[in-house]
């Protein structure tokens, strides 16, 4: 029985190996570890759209190889599952790249795996500073919170805002964002009159908003994960009459993400944020991107920064595949990625050769209404911002 088992295994694995070997000859596989279901599904949807849009526009063949995208679901912030899926994508599906990761814990859990397997890994959203330092095979095309936060602190100082109340979600990106804002703002003579951290899951913002109102700051600095929480907060902000009390709303752009801006509605008007992408960014590249996105996903679909990062990540894979002539080697791929420049819809971006993190222009924007729809309209910018850490 034992010998028969071993024989069966040998045959099965030989067949499996033969099959995967034959396939490996003419495909480049991209394994995406994404939060497809659960509370962060909207982020994963944007990212999937971005990747698929790039493949649709540029054809799924590059350097004579077919690009195959395999998407696996982590079901939310589930690091054990994210790690297992990464292992399986590498060991079972023989992928050449690992991409995705909307959330920091999932990316951190996968870091040792991709290091061991030497698989080039592109972080397409997760924005805690520390992630890319955890593996020499990780790079990031999205942003870091300190990177997009510092400009709004400088803007506030320049525009005579001296007293600020901070509210951030209690997890890595939130704490990063809070620390950066406080550092830049107080160094420039600003004063933090109060600070709260809200729970990462299912927060009730009512009491927090009341505390902000009672503290009567000139502005509230907000970081919340893009999506439902932002909608809930903005509604509460309006209902409790903070704008009427003269309290302005500032922060990195996650709370007024393009995808949910219409759902937030007019209460978002006037919010000033700093971020690396707005669908209202004025450039031929972005006009083309928004058009392609709405053509593919419907006239009312709104591309957000998450889709742009995923789109650029896919562009990075195509470029690496071209330069390596279709034969993907982890170390060679990382050498090409370091210093790579991408002509993105958000403006030109590049990858820092030292840190493998993204360098990009950060814009200051105001929520305005144009043709009956809400947009983040850019009015100031700081070029070539690196992660400050």
């Amino acid at each position: 029985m034992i010998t028969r088992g071993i024989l069966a295994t040998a045959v099965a694995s030989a067949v499996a190996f033969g099959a995967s070997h034959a396939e490996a000859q003419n495909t480049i596989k991209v394994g995406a570890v994404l939060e497809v279901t659960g509370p962060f599904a909207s982020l994963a949807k944007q990212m999937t759209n971005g990747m698929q849009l790039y493949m649709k526009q540029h054809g799924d063949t590059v350097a004579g190889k077919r690009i195959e995208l395999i998407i696996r679901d982590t079901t939310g912030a589930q690091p054990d599952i994210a790690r297992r899926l990464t292992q399986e994508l590498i060991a079972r599906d023989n992928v050449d790249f690992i991409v995705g990761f909307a959330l920091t814990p999932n990316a951190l859990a996968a870091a040792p795996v991709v290091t061991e397997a030497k698989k080039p890994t592109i972080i397409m959203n997760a924005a805690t500073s520390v992630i890319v330092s955890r593996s020499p095979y990780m790079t990031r095309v999205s942003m870091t919170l300190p990177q997009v936060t510092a400009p709004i602190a400088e803007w506030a100082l320049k525009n005579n805002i001296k007293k600020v109340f901070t509210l951030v979600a209690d997890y890595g990106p939130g704490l990063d964002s809070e620390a950066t804002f406080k550092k830049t703002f107080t160094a420039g003579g600003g004063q933090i009159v109060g600070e709260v951290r809200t729970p990462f899951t299912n927060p009730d913002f009512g009491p927090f908003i009341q505390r902000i109102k009672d503290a009567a700051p000139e502005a509230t600095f907000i970081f919340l994960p893009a999506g439902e929480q932002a909608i809930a907060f903005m509604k509460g902000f309006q209902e409790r009459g903070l704008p009427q009390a003269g309290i302005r709303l500032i922060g990195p752009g996650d709370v007024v993400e393009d995808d949910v801006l219409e759902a937030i509605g007019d209460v978002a008007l006037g919010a000033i944020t700093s971020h690396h992408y707005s669908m209202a960014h004025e450039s031929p590249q972005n006009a083309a991107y928004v058009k392609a996105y709405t053509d593919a996903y419907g006239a009312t679909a709104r591309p957000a920064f998450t889709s742009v990062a995923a789109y650029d990540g896919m562009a990075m894979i195509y470029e690496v595949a071209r330069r390596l002539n279709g034969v993907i080697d982890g170390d060679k791929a990382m050498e090409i990625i370091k210093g790579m420049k991408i002509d993105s819809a958000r403006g030109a971006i590049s990858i820092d050769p030292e840190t493998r993190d993204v360098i990009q222009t950060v814009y200051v924007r105001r929520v305005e209404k144009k043709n009956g729809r809400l947009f983040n309209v850019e009015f100031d910018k700081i070029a070539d911002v690196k992660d400050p850490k």
Partner: protein
Amino acid sequence: MPDDVATRPVRLPDDRWHPLEIVFWLGLVTAFFLFPGYRVLGSQILITGLFAVSLDLILGYAGIVSLGHAAFFGVGAYTAGLLAVYGWGEPITGLFAGAATAAIVGYGTSFLVVRGHDLARLMMTLGIGFLLFEAANKAAFVTGGVDGLSGVVMWKLFGVFTFDFAGRTAYLYSLAVLFILFVVLRRVVASPFGLSLIGIRERSRRIPAIGAPLRQREVAIFTISAAVAGMAGALLAQTTQFVGLDVLSFSRSAEVLIILILGGAGRLYGGLIGAVVYMVAQDILSTYISAAYWRFWIGLLLVAIVLVAHGGILDGATAIYRRLTRGRS
């Protein structure tokens, strides 16, 4: 019929190994060779199975309902994870440390839980789960908070086997731990102590009448169950070398309850079968059917199984098995 019960000598359950049990365990060993690409998934199924077995001890045997069993799973996971982060990466001792801290927390909280009845117990276990979750979240300087605990470095198992990439060591290690614990627990539930637990489940008011200390028995099994859950958590931390905050989450408590009920409570194997069916189905559905809508199909599967077999898969299978063997004789 009552006469029959009265005159029959009181006997402990037959705890000889049934041939099907042997087939089951050989199957788990064979799976290691048959599906080399699925060993990581396999190890996580075994760990979840062990976790479900720990819940079965209190729910299936003593009838103590719980919506916060992940509390003990998480305590075990963080204990083993933190030990390894702070320089003690030896797996076996880490495993026992996880079990020990979970047992201490289990013993401490058991007095709160066993006081009330079903609804009060649900609330109490739920509350304990939330407390620990938020405590771990707040203590981010120790646990890493929502970002998770990284930097867990495991030493080689017995100084020989590294925790490898393809999950070889993880699978065999998890299987060995599961089997040893299972043999012990199988003996425990077939002992007079185990019988008294069933007595508690069926008619707890009569237990004092036969001279058994009700509360002490409940505290004892709750503590044992917490220790086993802690060991499962420690296994997960060691084999994934990462501890996420989700080890303490309500969704993990709820999932293990679903798995146990799906497999069939009150017979130890239910948790294992439930874990295999639920997680394999989830993997197949989310990989081959749809990464976005697999929950629809798993919902359908749960409804269908419980509709056909009220007591879970094992009950349904037992009914079929009985009918078949009766037909033969």
